[in-house]
């Protein structure tokens, strides 16, 4: 267990560095989508929720897990769908020298 915790801490610190560099690379124009994408991605706690709720017999433990699954799925589906809507608006458009009305 003690060896494990050091491995997990190592992973955590390295992941922080990855996050740092990747996030600084995001263009400021897309900061809103960054929030909603990272928000959706943080819904990955659903993995924990599924493990908790995955016990075969019904118990308080399982019920709490199932609630967590529902909440995290709202976060995930909602987050990705909102991001997709937002990003669809950032499609490259030909600057329209639009016709006179």
């Amino acid at each position, binding site marked *: 267990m003690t060896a494990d915790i050091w491995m997990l801490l190592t992973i955590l610190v390295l992941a922080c560095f990855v996050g740092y560099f990747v996030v600084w690379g995001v263009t400021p124009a897309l900061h809103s989508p960054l929030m909603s*994408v*990272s928000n959706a991605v943080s819904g990955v706690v659903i993995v924990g929720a599924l493990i908790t709720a995955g016990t075969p017999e019904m118990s308080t433990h399982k019920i709490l897990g199932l609630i967590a699954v529902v909440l995290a799925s709202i976060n995930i589906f909602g987050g990705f769908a909102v991001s997709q809507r937002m*990003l669809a608006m950032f499609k490259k458009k030909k600057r329209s020298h639009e016709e006179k009305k």
Partner: protein
Amino acid sequence: MNTAYVSATYLLSCVLFILSIRGLASPETARRGNILGMLGMASAILVTIYSPVVGEYAWLFGAIAVGGIIGTWFALKVKMTALPQMIAAFNGLGGLSSVFIAAAEIISGSQTRLESSLGLLIGAVAFSGSVVAFAKLQGLMSPKAIIFPGQQLLNLILGLSVAALCVFFILSGRNDLFYILAGISVLLGFLLVLPIGGADMPVVISVLNAYSGWAAVGIGFSLNNVLLIIVGAIVGASGTILSYIMTKAMNRSLTSVMLGGFGAETHQSAKGGGEEKTAKAGNPQDAAFIMENASKVIIVPGYGTAVAQAQHVLKELAGDLRSLYDVDVKFAIHPVAGRMPGHMNVLLAEAGVPYEDIYALEEINREFASADVAYVIGANDITNPLARTDPNAPIYGMPILEVEKAKTVFFVKRSLASGYAGVENPLFFADNTIMLYGDAKKVTEEIVGTLERK
């Protein structure tokens, strides 16, 4: 399915999530990035359900379906103007999810009390903080800073008792302490966001976003799950960096934002006494005349643009000036304009303004000197020159859009009232400023009408 497959799939998911954020480096790759994120999530979920530690499927799929339908429905139905509160709401639910997982771990007698408490604590603060942020953004409660005497002391006491409870709980393992800890953390989240007012919302939303990531890290440690740790760290880094960018764009420290109170009292800064100043008022027809004879116009949108839903008519304005009068039109966006990071960019994208026409603060500032017109619509503090000249002003040191360098500055505002920071804007009384009083959308519509009539 054996555990090696599970680990390999988690690794794949991590890579996909990193690529999804990486995709946001440019609008061209962003949608592909989002799809990679969905793939990463789908594989993580499926491999977990079919992993050896999970022994039941029906309830799990049912729960995912329920959450998925609710989430998708809201996401597709929400108006683009309600995005900030939508993101706050989703964020809060993610935090609450961590709370339930931590609680389930604890009642099943898990020994990872430190990790579970961290997941619980951060998740609970993210949840209740997001609820308050949502209520403020949705207009369910006053967006102003809510301050009462002894507030900071109370928060300090609550913060310390949370820390103390954590320690007692970890040492004793008494579950009742865990529930009290949950309760106080929720209360703390409410109280932390109450004193933070409207224009500081971009910071708050970023901080809460970071919390939901760090909560996932806590849960990851408690379940020994590498995927949660990696992804949580990346989300945490993202929220933290956004908070940093936002506070820097206001020249404030994170502590001063979180302690709140900004804009609660009107600041009597070193303003030159009571002499009567007069602002020049103009009408949309004058503005149209000046703009059509200009060679370069820079449009500066602020939160008022979002409130008045003026983004579509702004696009028309830009299009008409360009096509009918051959004017060079650019949009200038301050990092903290609006209620969330990048709010104005989304708004203009919604109206169909090409992103090549939109410039960030440092790209556009030198161009104001060569611009004939700066059209400031629904913005105030982010253009206030006191930020550079008056060390006593609360906004001193905040980088501003230097609109005063343009030959003519139009301010579209309802009144001469101070902005969020409670600082009077001397620009309203400058010789080259013309005020256009009224609703941002109506005023711009009239300008467009005049431009098109000729």
